[in-house]
């Protein structure tokens, strides 16, 4: 019984954290290059719609997932054009994207799905695959934890790749250099614009994945209310994770764990009001992070406009 409970909580943790991990990785790469991207929420929204719509029309969750990444990348490009080439205020541009994403997704949804504000659900076998489905007995210990959609495993692979990219490759070193001191990096011959363009577009791609991980893995359709705040939670997770991919991952997992515990609570027979319980993930995450995580230091040129002289 105790094992069952642990398995349920861990499984829920993984499910909850996955879309957040993608998006927070997007935030991580963008901000390491010195560009604040608060448009993550809007891009996730767009990714959720594109993933579900393309998945529905092509009968393939994977094509939908990739399409969500591509469209997310285009939104990243938009942000990059606004705040790298046109040196717009990064926060203002991000806010614009947070309006643009949902508005545009809804418009497209109504155009392509007979005016409905949601897409037609994908059948199970057209969604993203569950590689370990059927390997364990239904609702057994391992089944509850590991019978997850591929997007869950991919998220962890991407965390590793992002860590490798940022800390073990030349490109990563350049990204971080540009985020710390763009003028100094430029004097060494690094093309600051190019590096920042790359990073911001990547952040769009990853946020698009995050949205699709929600719409075609956790559920099977896009709805107007599907993305409601996950982008901002991912942004916060990235900051709590000190702008590091592994830190962001732990923060997302922590938030997922808190949710898992809250959903499990009523099974213990404790009579706590559900309103109080639903506050808990946020309170718990805050407390744990304040207690265990020290001062968070952003890349020093984060949010600063760079113009070549």
């Amino acid at each position, binding site marked *: 019984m105790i094992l*069952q409970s642990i398995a*349920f909580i861990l*499984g*829920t943790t993984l*499910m*909850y954290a996955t879309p957040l991990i993608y998006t927070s990785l997007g935030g991580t790469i963008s901000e390491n290059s010195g560009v604040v991207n608060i448009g993550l929420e809007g891009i996730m929204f767009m990714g959720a719609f594109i993933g579900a719509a393309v998945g529905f029309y092509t009968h393939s969750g994977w094509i939908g997932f990739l399409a969500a990444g591509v469209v997310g990348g285009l939104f990243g490009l*938009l942000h990059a054009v*606004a*705040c790298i080439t*046109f*040196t*717009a*205020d990064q926060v*203002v*541009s991000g*806010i*614009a*994207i947070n*309006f*643009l994403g949902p*508005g*545009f997704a*809804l*418009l497209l949804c*109504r155009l392509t799905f007979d*005016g*409905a*504000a*949601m897409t037609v*659900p994908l059948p*199970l076998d057209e969604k993203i695959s569950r590689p370990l489905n059927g390997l364990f007995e*239904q*609702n057994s210990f391992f089944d*509850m934890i590991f019978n997850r959609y591929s997007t869950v495993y991919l998220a962890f692979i991407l965390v590793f790749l992002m860590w490798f990219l940022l800390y073990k490759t030349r490109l990563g070193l350049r990204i971080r250099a540009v985020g710390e001191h763009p003028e100094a990096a430029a004097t060494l011959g690094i093309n600051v614009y190019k590096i920042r363009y790359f990073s911001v577009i990547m952040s769009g791609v990853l946020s698009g994945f995050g949205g699709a991980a*929600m719409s075609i893995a*956790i*559920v*099977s*359709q896009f*709805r*107007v*209310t*599907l993305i*409601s705040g996950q982008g901002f939670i991912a942004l916060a997770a990235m900051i709590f994770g000190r702008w590091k991919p592994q830190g962001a991952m732990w923060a997302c997992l922590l938030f997922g764990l808190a*949710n*898992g515990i809250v*959903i*499990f609570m*009523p*099974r213990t027979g404790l009579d706590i009001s*559900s*309103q109080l*319980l*639903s506050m808990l993930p946020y309170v718990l995450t805050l407390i744990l992070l304040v207690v265990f995580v020290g001062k968070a230091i952003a890349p020093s040129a984060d949010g600063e*406009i760079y*113009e070549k002289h």
Partner: protein
Amino acid sequence: MKKLSILFTAMLALMVVSCNKPKEAAAPAEEPKQVEKTVSVTMVTDVGGVNDQSFNQSAWEGLQKAKADFGIDVSYKESKQNADYAPNMEIALDSDNDLIWGIGFMMADAIMEAAQNNPDQKYAIIDNAYENTPENVVGVVFEAEQCSYLVGYIAGRMTQTGKVGFIGGIEFFLIQEFEYGFKAGVKQAGADIEVLSQYAESFSDAAKGKSIANSMYQQGADIIFHAAGGVGNGLIEAAKEQGKWAIGVDRDQSSLAPENVLTSAMKRVDNGIYNLSKDLADGKFPGGKTVSYGLAENGVGIAPTSSKHVPADILAEVEKLEEMIIDGAFVVPNTAETVEAYTPVEL
């Protein structure tokens, strides 16, 4: 450069806003006032918009049916956010309508304020009962416990594990009526059937709905009913993955997962709107009151697709219960105490 960029972002924002502009519905133009003027009715949606596959859409279908059946003028205004309610009320007022509908309890305050400022204009609202209803307002509520009772009975009769579940959105009286009606229905089917019940405290968090559903299925429940909007999406997904039953709400949700949605507890907002608009056209507008629509008025009911998965003998029993409720043989409980006190009726 910087100015240019601010302009650029501002334009982006504007583009979005203009995309979202509420559709200017076929507003009655400045016709010369005739003695025999057609009755015109308009509705203002809440934030879901008119194609929300839920009660706003249902409301608009009701108005269109009323238009087809007795030739009234109909139109709608969509709200994108709570702040749109008051301006939309003004637009509706200016376009000279006989009756203005507010769809959803979220508009209760906006309707009340508009009604007090314009005592000559008639208003009606879905899902809200005011304590003191002004003479120019009608509140329309649905007896959700009745349809929940019927699906509860179906769940109770069809469970093989002796355990069923209920997932609520946000815990307040409108949603609790579903819970208590459902519990009473299950009790009617068998006194020893356990009902697991949990609230998500959200109408949008699909991941939470899915986890709660998984949790209930793991505890042995095999049929789960929801009254939780977008949260219920997660339930239906969990039912698909686990090969279990889900029961939909508000509309016939069978299309979301034809093999796993057993039935749906339907709230016929369309019929409510239709009935009251008819009363208006007949000159019998019940101002100053709260009208309550139940099974008898076709205000609630179970989904027509239920016969796909529910055996005919159980449906026959459901029909019998339905008749008994309509005849007033018993009252469906809608509070914790009345469910406790409920004793199954003779079929």
